[in-house]
């Protein structure tokens, strides 16, 4: 009897003392919310981009099996984001500077928002039924992730500017200046079929990898630490 009473008292005390403090997270540090640190922001963003790249790789390999013998070949030899200049090696990336690197990241992410949603719509309407349910869900997921990542990187850039680690950037680059207006139709070769999907995914896989890598470089440039 007394033992159970003691246990109950202990549990009540624990519950009262170890209450999880919840507070909304706001990136700009408004009053009343708990602003995450830059390191937290970087970590979240990098994790998101890594996940996005992983899903796009899976989706691409799923489509790959239907295309004998074309492996890893781009039909049109071009991605619609070819207009965005991206550093293609380490020296170029380091030479680019953090502000431009941030711009490139944002441009890439902006360029892919629309095509991915169209891809999802297109996949669901595919008559050939080449895709299973996982493909549909993955396409939807990456399209959502692109949007989220784009917002996250924007918030992070703002925070960096507030902190003074980032200088003036070109700002939010509208994708129209660098990217063909109808990005999705860029991949179209006649009738919409799975080949278009494959090329699109091929390009997206690569661009997501770029985004991730650029973010990692940015992080280690701005916050050198144990992970770098």
């Amino acid at each position: 009897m007394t033992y159970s009473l003691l246990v109950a008292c202990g549990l009540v005390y624990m519950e009262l003392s170890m209450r999880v403090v919840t507070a909304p997270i706001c990136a700009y540090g408004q009053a009343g919310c708990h602003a995450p640190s830059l390191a937290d922001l970087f970590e979240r963003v990098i994790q998101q981009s890594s996940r996005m790249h992983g899903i796009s790789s899976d989706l691409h390999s799923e489509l790959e099996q239907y295309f004998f013998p074309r492996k890893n070949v781009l039909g049109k030899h071009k991605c619609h984001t070819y207009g965005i200049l991206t550093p293609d090696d380490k020296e170029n990336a380091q030479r680019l500077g953090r502000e431009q690197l941030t711009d490139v990241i944002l441009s890439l992410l902006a360029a892919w928002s629309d095509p991915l949603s169209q891809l999802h719509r297109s996949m669901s309407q595919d008559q050939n039924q080449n895709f299973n349910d996982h493909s549909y869900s993955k396409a939807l997921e990456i399209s959502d992730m692109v949007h989220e990542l784009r917002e996250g990187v924007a918030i992070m850039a703002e925070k960096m500017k507030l902190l003074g680690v980032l200088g003036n950037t070109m700002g939010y680059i509208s994708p129209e200046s660098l990217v063909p207006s109808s990005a999705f139709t860029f991949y179209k070769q006649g009738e919409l079929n799975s080949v278009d999907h494959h090329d699109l995914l091929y390009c997206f896989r690569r661009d997501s990898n770029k985004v991730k890598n650029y973010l990692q470089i940015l992080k280690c440039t701005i916050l050198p630490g144990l992970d770098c």
Partner: protein
Amino acid sequence: MKKAVELVLLLLLLFFTPHIMGKRYSPPGKPTLTRCRSPEKETFTCWWEPGSDGGLPTTHALYYRKESSERVYECPDYHTAGENSCFFNKNDTSIWVNYNITVVATNTLGSAFSDPVDVDVVYIVKPNPPEKQTVTIMEDKGWPFLRVSWEPPQKADTRSGWITLIYELRVKLEEENEWEMHLAGHQKTFNIFSLRSGGKYLVEVRCKPDHGFWSEWSSTSYIKVPDYFHREKSVWILLTIFSAFIFLILTWLLHMNSRSLKNCILPPVPGPKIKGFDNQLLKNGKSDEIFSALMVSNFPPTTSSNYEDLLVEYLEVYVPVEQELMQEESKDLHGGCLKCERSTSDSDSGRGSCDSHTLLMDKCGETKEEGRHTDRASSRMLTEAQRHQKGWEKDTLTYAHGDMVSPDMSNGRVKTWPSVFSPLPQYSSNPLDKQSSLEMAKQHCLSTSSCLTQPGHSTKEALGPSNWDFCLGNKQPHLLHPQTQVGRQLQAHSEVNISNIGRKQAPAGLQSPALRSTEYVEVQRVNEEDLVLLQPVVSGCGRIEGYPQMPKGKDYSKVKGVDSDNMLLLQREVMEEDWWTGNCYTSSTVNTTQKPTACIHTAMPVQGDMALAMNGYVDTATMCTLPTC
């Protein structure tokens, strides 16, 4: 002419011998690109496998084309990476660009193109193994653990974030075959716990970029865990000593309590205890001696010897103080029967009686006193008679219940008789003593002047067994009839004996009536008017010796009451209700009024004081009994 022909023949031979001999040259076989790898995502190398060379010296060349460009480049470096390889340095390497690579093998007869391979450097990264691996032993609260630390491969630039590596290590004991894998993630240190004391461990580490290939395992590090077994050993030693100590204590306890434990676990089997049985005699083998020892001289009981012994254990002693005094005085010949008077307590256990004292005490205190004396004498005889009985439960005879009015109802007798002996141990010593005691009891009751003497023994035998049975209560009336007859018969016999005995001693100074036969009248019950209803015994009327006849009928005499002279007033209920007055004379007169077949033998108290026992029984010894037919 002949020389020209020979020359032509030689030339022809020279031309055709290769064909004749079967040796063919062919263009080279098709080479194949086996793999391309980049160790740090800044350079990469491709290796190919050449096909058949066709018998001719073959050269290989690697050509590549970059994505979205039609320009074809040849491999810049064929030697750095070894045989059949092409090394792309930093300047020639572009990331996120698709390389279309082809290898061409050429010999004099032709060339062969390999299948083109598309390579994106991002996906072919295979780093070098981690470097500067160290393993140290550290302690956590006395328990050792391994701390493994390493550095990323030198070429991989993780510091700028260009490459992100994840690590994995594996551990095993030297004598084991299987490795234990641990994924370390992005960290560069790792702790291994749960080590075997004194074991020798092997540790290896490898790494992988986010999307790439695992590196080779690093060089093995050996580490030997120090012996902390002695710490465990001391614990075992302590445990052993403690358990031995406990064991010793338990053994000692067991030894001390071995006997009681033995009795608890293996209770001793009770062996037969035969009186007079000698094991040694049995072993010696002399059967005569053994069985003679077994034979009890007085079994079956023929005389009145030791019957008290048999009954002693069943005796229930209930001797009030006054009774004891009275009994003691009764031994004394000169002791007065006067003191026998008016004792309100039972001489017997009281339990065994039919609570006669409670019923008779109020009104017939004298009768009890008288009855006590008679009981003493009669009980001896009765017990003797009981021994003749077969099937009588001695337990029932002697056992006394508090709640039962007459536990001795089995024989129709009040069980008070055996208990009489308990306060009188001297009576149980031997038959002679009993006889003397009986005589004494008779005598002292008769010695008083007030005691009326009994009629002569001529009537005694004729009386036969007439028993006073105070059977109070109606608990077991049914038991009266079947057994009382038997009892009466046997009792008659005993009475005759005692009467004979008494007869012998008659000239000792007793008045003749002392040797009268004791007669009993069976008391059937006491009705609500405090009347003792007696069952007269119809015994051998007219027969002086021998066994008396069984009573033909059941005639009961009612005890009407006790008069002022402490005399039991009997009421003959069979024919008429007459009041008996308590002396022989009157009884005789009454008897004459009876039916000739009905012999009512009533023992009446001669003198109320001594004749009336305390327990309310009429002592036949003191009574005047008149055999009447």
